[in-house]
């Protein structure tokens, strides 16, 4: 099912913060390989370092030590401009609180990454429509996020994350603000999109049952360290 070349390769990644006199090891010597088209769930309690690890993969943060290779990029060697381009073209991100821009319509929110990618204006409407079709929200193009339910907002966020056709989708607690039924619906959609579009998904969550149900593999973190990595089915057993 998985091709042999990894989509994400983390090698002894650490991220330390200074908090006054003390140094906090948010991520501590984590090595992890995520193959292409994998759906990996990062599990762990609050403060375990899973979101920090996701931000490092997203290129929003830089590791204190170690190396990250994603889709042929050595993130450590990228300057800030190249890192922005990497986020734009290779990564799609969704968040717990959706992070849609409230004054923009759905259409404009989804168009935003295309503006940043400087895609020709004439091509944008079709791309936006295509992305919204995938999340089944084309009938609400002109609505603002506040007029939508939580599940719908997350679907818009997914459309926005996919509009630039990324190879890696990073989801930070995508079901955290949703009821369990809606959460399941969102993850069903993610799986569906993955099988259609063929992309790698790394999802941070603390909801083990959902992770076990939808992810291929589970990785568990605690105190910045990676405790275990394995196929979801094995863990379920």
């Amino acid at each position: 099912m998985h091709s042999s070349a990894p989509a994400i390769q983390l090698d002894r990644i650490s991220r330390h913060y200074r908090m006054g006199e003390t140094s906090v090891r948010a991520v501590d010597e984590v090595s992890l390989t995520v193959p292409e088209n994998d759906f990996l769930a990062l599990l762990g309690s609050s403060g375990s370092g899973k979101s920090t690890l996701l931000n490092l993969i997203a290129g929003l943060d830089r590791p204190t030590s170690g190396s990250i290779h994603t889709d042929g990029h050595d993130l450590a060697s990228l300057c800030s401009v190249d890192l922005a381009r990497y986020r734009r073209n290779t990564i799609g991100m969704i968040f717990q609180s959706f992070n849609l821009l409230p004054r923009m319509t759905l259409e404009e929110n989804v168009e935003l990454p295309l503006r940043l990618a400087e895609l020709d204006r004439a091509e944008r409407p079709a791309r936006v429509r295509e992305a919204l079709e995938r999340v089944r929200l084309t009938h609400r193009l002109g609505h603002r996020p506040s007029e939508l339910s939580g599940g719908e907002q997350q679907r818009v966020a997914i459309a926005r994350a996919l509009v630039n056709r990324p190879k890696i989708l990073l989801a930070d607690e995508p079901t955290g603000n949703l009821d369990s039924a809606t959460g399941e619906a969102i993850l069903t959609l993610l799986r569906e999109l993955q099988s259609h579009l063929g992309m790698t998904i790394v999802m941070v969550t603390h909801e083990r049952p959902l992770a076990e149900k939808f992810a291929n593999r589970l990785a568990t973190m605690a105190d910045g360290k990676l405790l275990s990595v394995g196929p979801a089915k094995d863990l379920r057993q």
Partner: protein
Amino acid sequence: MKPRDLTDLAFRNLRESILRNTLTTLGVAVGVASFVAIISIGVGLQQLASRRLSESGLFDTIVVTPKNNFRGMNRPNPEPESGKPPRALDEDARKEFEKLPSVVEVYPQIRFFTEVRFNNKPYATVVAGMPDSSKNSGAFDGMQGHFFSSTAADEAILQIEFAKELSDQPSSLVGQDLILRYAERQALPTSATSRGTSMNPPDAPSGGFSIVPRELHLKIVGIVETEPAAGYGGYGSGRLLMPLEAASALRAAQVNDLRDIVRDSASNKTSYSSLSVRAKSPSQVQSIEDSIKKMGFRAFSLLDASKSLRIFFTVFDLLVGIFGSLALAIATLGIVNTLVMAILERRREIGVLKALGASDSDVQQLFFVEAGVMGFLGGILGIGFGWILSRAMTAGTNYYLYRQNLNPIELTAVPWWLALAALVIAVLVSLAAGLYPASRAAKLNPVDALRYE
């Protein structure tokens, strides 16, 4: 991001906090308005002074005299290398001057001392011929009566001081007649002065003339407060003004006529002791003056005085501009404040933009454009406000002048370059004000920004 997308997003952001951004933009507008209004006074005063001086004929007039005039008679020829006899300042020369670029008109200076009889009493005065163009010079604005009905009318306009000599109630003089007594110059035949010499050398003395006393009835049509000077270099300002053609037709003997006796008059063409050449504007005086000198005449102008005037007003504008800029400086602090507040409010949004792939420079440019848009809109509004303010100042000043029975003036002026400069300054100053907030927004850590609630 492409410029159009940046502008779109900037306008959207500005609309979002419409009240605060409108107030900030109004702050810029008030700053620009005060700048425009204050500079407009400087420009208006400069234009007023330039206009008055230009109307006086001091700075746009070149007085041309032939090289062989009285002053040069006992002195060595200033341009001996030419080797040619000096050119006569005649009708041909006049036509040549008229053909020069930027020459508005060429006219002879006619001024002569003479006597006027009014109510059988003699009054000594100076008569000056006024070209028709002087009607629009501003010197006759607010005069009593009217300007000459035609260029050859036997009419007179009196200077107020002279009119007061004639009557205790000068205004009653309009419509009355006076008698001008003058000496007409009549040329004698050349043979009468050749003293029997059959061959006259080219620079032999001229034919000479006789002087015949004449009288002319003139109707007083107006009384003028100011002292219109038809150029300079004459013998003093005219106190009795006549249409130039009428004055010219009198062939009244002038002081300079004495030199004509010793001048070559091989040709019988009318020659002038001097001609006034008026340029379109003082800036063209130098080139016209040079061209005339090349033709072989003497030419004088007061251009240097005009240059000093321009330097004075440039310094004056600079000083008033500094005061005018103070309000604009305060307005820029408003922009800094607004944008810094916007960073706090839009912290999370900046984080989202960066997560979606916006580079630091995208974020920086976005804030920059927002500052520029506020500066641009504030600039446009400010130019409008400034213009209204300047018109109000002119109207207020003219109301005061009207109450004082004085003529209205254009105190202020907002030329296109001032409007353009104000707009450019408003945008540049606003961009400078956006420099700090924009770089602060660009440096925001996206992880911290996304965590911000």
